[in-house]
């Protein structure tokens, strides 16, 4: 599908249905990004898919384009959070009404996009968080990962009083207002998960957890491996601490 068709599908989506955007941050994901983009477009007919290529050296961008995605390329590797935020900025400027985000490694099952977007489109909540522990499927997660999830759940609960089962989930959906809020400088763009939940909750957004289907990352190439989890936990604790000592942010305060 060429860029011309994409423009046409943009116009088509305005008839009745809300304009939806799926943001897929990708770094060196040439093997999987194509199938992920195709599956997402199939799962949500009429949606646009934007792949934020975070300075990959492989064929991530061309693979994504071949599958019909709009591609935004960072000139250098800026990190997962920054890639997500580029997607939010794109969503805001192009006027999308609902935004979903998922990983490019095939971990997040596109069939869950619909249940994630539903509460946003019905305006029940502002942000939907995909949880693997809420769903029927049993997941065999490494012990370290489960411990980490528990710790972050407890922290998010302590900071906001909100109960979440899967606070590190990157499979989410949000309203345009949330995307606009996260497109400003308030976004903690190093690692964006539990700290973003706290940020959003403190800003007064409504958050709902939705059961989703997740697969083990193909080839086990998750970022939670080796010594990385320890460093990650440290950085996330720091980020959460900083988030809680800052003044509560107001949506609409900054500029996108």
């Amino acid at each position, binding site marked *: 599908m060429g*860029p*011309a068709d*994409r*423009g046409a599908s*943009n116009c088509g989506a305005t008839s009745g249905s809300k304009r939806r955007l799926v943001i897929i941050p990708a770094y060196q994901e040439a093997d999987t990004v194509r199938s992920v983009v195709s599956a997402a477009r199939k799962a949500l007919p009429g949606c646009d898919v934007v792949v*934020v290529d975070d300075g990959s050296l492989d064929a991530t961008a061309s693979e994504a384009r071949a599958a019909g995605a*709009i*591609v*935004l*390329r*960072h*000139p*250098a590797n*800026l990190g997962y959070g*920054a890639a997500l*935020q*580029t997607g939010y*900025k*794109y969503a*805001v*400027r*192009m*006027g999308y009404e609902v935004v979903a985000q998922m990983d490019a490694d095939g971990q997040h099952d596109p069939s869950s996009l619909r249940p994630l977007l539903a509460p946003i489109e019905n305006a029940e909540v502002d942000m939907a968080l995909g949880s693997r522990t809420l769903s029927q499927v049993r997941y065999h997660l490494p012990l370290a990962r489960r411990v980490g999830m528990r710790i972050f759940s407890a922290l998010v609960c302590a900071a906001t009083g909100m109960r979440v089962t899967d606070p590190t989930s990157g499979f989410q959906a949000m309203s345009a207002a949330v995307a*606009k809020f996260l497109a400003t*400088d308030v976004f903690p*763009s190093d690692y964006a998960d539990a700290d973003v939940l706290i940020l959003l909750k403190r800003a007064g957004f409504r958050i709902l957890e939705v059961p989703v289907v997740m697969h083990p990352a193909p080839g086990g190439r998750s970022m939670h491996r080796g010594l990385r989890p320890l460093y990650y936990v440290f950085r996330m604790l720091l980020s959460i601490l900083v988030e809680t000592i800052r003044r509560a942010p107001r949506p609409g305060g900054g500029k*996108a």
Partner: protein
Amino acid sequence: MTPRQEAFSIVVCVVLLAVIAWLVRQRRLSEYHSGLWLVFGVGLLVMVLWYDALQFLARLAGAVVVTTAVFITAFLFLVAVSIHTSTELTRLHRLVRTLAQELALLEARLKEPPDARPPLGHSVEQTKPGSEEHRPWEGMG
């Protein structure tokens, strides 16, 4: 302080100030960022030449030997300079990120067919007449 200590300290301060001046002259250090270093050099020089101030500082810090006051002053200045560097780094980090993101967004816009682009000057949020942001009557009178 012994004359030797004094002479050594003065030489260090003068060399430091000279290096800063040279870097600024070469435009390898901006006036803005040289500020703290100049304060550092001059402050240290003052401490060395003005013995009473040094003694006062030593008593304030509870130091037994006056030279310790010189070290404390130097140490605190270095801490200040490196905190300042960290805040600058944060600012630059944010700036680079924003620029890279803008570049990615602009590039994507250039590749779009012209008719799919929103009109120029398209703003994120149009202020509607009557909304809170739009008060043309304010400040008119």
